[in-house]
């Protein structure tokens, strides 16, 4: 309950029902307040905000075109005038490539998680709610889990060509089982609660129960899972691009930058370190924010 002090005024005897309920701050405001109270959450959110703004306005922010080569100035170290973070083996501006590479990473992350959500959430709901579908969907989940993610990506690249979109779909498919299992267990939990039962007694159909009661109450865990899945997808993109299964050169991507840089790591370490650090910062920011969000959403954290 809340910590509202009861007004100590001599009132006429009010029924329990009439008495003022201890007023609590709205749920949303409480969550926001908790997030603001956590410095790590604020920092990670700020990093993500900057990343998103940079990604959206990338073409305008980047000082050069990421593909513009300058063979006169290859391997310029960071701090070179005109190239804040230096240039790579082809004389391309590293800062511009990082900006557009991060944008590609975020795109893959969002696209992959969107794929996983669109498929995983309905299947998870169905699996948890309808007993008859549970076995089938669970076997399907096992199948997906058993399928090696890299083989899937290779296959997809072979059939449809290696591209950002296909890499995202491959990563998204690999993330589907996680969402199915999470949503399934949450649905199973919610299904057994009295408010769902009461709704069924009052004549609610399955779609009503799922849409009005189960899904709204499952959103917070889905949200938290998504914030964890995005950085995983970003890492996945880096791996795929590193292996040449993702974004194709000369398009910039943090993964391809790392892949090319490894040949010159000794000569121009910044070409490897900078994309590596960028990946790390993005992934960390998402993970930390996801963790803080989980804590903020946890009703037990509110002490009652």
């Amino acid at each position, binding site marked *: 309950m809340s*910590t*509202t*002090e*009861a007004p100590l005024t001599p*009132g006429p005897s*009010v029924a329990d029902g009439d008495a003022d309920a201890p007023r609590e701050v709205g749920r949303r405001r409480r969550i926001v307040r*908790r997030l603001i109270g956590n410095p790590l959450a604020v920092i990670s959110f700020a990093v993500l905000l900057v990343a998103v703004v940079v990604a959206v306005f990338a073409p305008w922010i980047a000082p050069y075109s990421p593909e513009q080569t300058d063979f006169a100035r290859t391997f310029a170290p960071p701090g070179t005038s005109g190239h804040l973070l230096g240039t790579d083996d082809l004389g391309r501006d590293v800062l511009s490539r990082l900006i557009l590479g991060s944008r590609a990473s975020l795109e893959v992350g969002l696209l992959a998680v969107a794929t996983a959500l669109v498929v995983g959430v309905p299947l998870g709901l169905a699996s948890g709610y309808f007993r008859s579908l549970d076995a089938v969907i669970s076997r399907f989940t096992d199948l997906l889990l058993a399928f090696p993610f890299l083989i899937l990506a290779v296959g997809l690249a072979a059939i449809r060509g290696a591209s950002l979109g296909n890499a995202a779909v491959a990563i998204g498919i690999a993330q589907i089982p996680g969402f199915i299992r999470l949503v399934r267990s949450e649905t199973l939990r919610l299904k057994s609660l009295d408010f769902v039962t009461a709704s069924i007694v009052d004549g609610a159909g399955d779609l009503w129960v799922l849409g009005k009661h189960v899904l709204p109450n499952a959103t917070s865990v889905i949200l938290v899972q998504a914030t964890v899945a995005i950085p995983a997808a970003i890492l996945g993109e880096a791996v795929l691009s590193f292996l040449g299964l993702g974004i194709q050169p000369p398009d910039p991507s943090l993964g391809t930058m790392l892949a090319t840089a490894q040949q010159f790591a000794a000569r121009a370490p910044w070409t490897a370190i900078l994309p590596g650090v960028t990946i790390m910062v993005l992934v960390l920011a998402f993970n930390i924010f996801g963790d803080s969000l989980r804590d903020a959403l946890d009703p037990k954290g509110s002490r009652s």
Partner: protein
Amino acid sequence: MTITPLEVDHRSGSGSGSILEVRDLTVTFTTESGTVSAVDHISLDLREGEIVGIVGESGCGKSVTAMSLSGLLPRSARTAGSVRLHGTELIGAKEPVLRAVRGRDIAYIFQEPMSSLNPVLTVGRQISEVLQVHERLSRKLTRDRVIELLTLVGIPSPLQRIDNYPHQLSGGMRQRVMIAMAVACDPKVLVADEPTTALDVTVQAGILDILRELRDRLGTAILIITHDLGVIADIADRVVVMYAGRVVESAPVDELFARPQHHYTAGLLAASPAPGRHAGTDRLQEIPGLVPVLAVQPDACTFAPRCPAADAQCLGSAPPLTSDQNALGLLPGHAFACWHPCGKPPTSAKELKP
């Protein structure tokens, strides 16, 4: 370590000194939405062989009081005041001191016997562990002692039950095992926090009997915490009524039920359904309003907003816990914190409705 009957005159209570002395115990919690005052300057005594009941509704601080006795509260709690066990101060004592006290001197049993037992260990093993923590006994002696304990708490065929896992026992049996673990080291004080609330009523009677027997045979002082006035009437020698973190009334059990002085006590008595007690009426007495959750204890009677007898004095200053025996003809040991006590019996419906 044999169990010998101990002659204790538990009804009089005044002969022996207190085992446990609680003085001005105050507990506040710091939460993210501010401080909460859970217990405010509580004093109580527990004598050898005495069963004292703490009664109150959820949020009145009765469980917090129990946990604070041996420092079992979470870190967010701030405890002040004094808790003396045989003269040893426990508030502010170092963790090793408290650890030695827990189990050996002050033992606890809780509401949920299932979650308090480890599901993968036999009950015999779990009781043995308690014995081994505090006493060094040989294997054979330990096993004998465990069987003795199981017999003591009324578990039939203890030789078989000793090798049972918790899930093989009924709820009542599990609570008996919990009691066996609690009394394994002959504690001076047994704190029972809602020990029968999760049990069926036909099982409850047996558990209360066991507690009574422990007191009679071992002289254990028992602090029983409950919301159920029926349980209090059944087992307690003395009752402490708590409301919003304060003691509002304390008295020998018969005295409290016959002549409640605080209007909260009277209201609680009238609100409890009990077969036959309200025969003829078809309504139960209600206590209007809600138990307040307080950030700071005010200098006022915290029950005043719900009290039919409240006036400006009640809102202006907190009534001290007094025993105004002469004026009201109360028994010794009957104390209450009210500016306008209910007075002489009968205290019933008409006094509650203004």
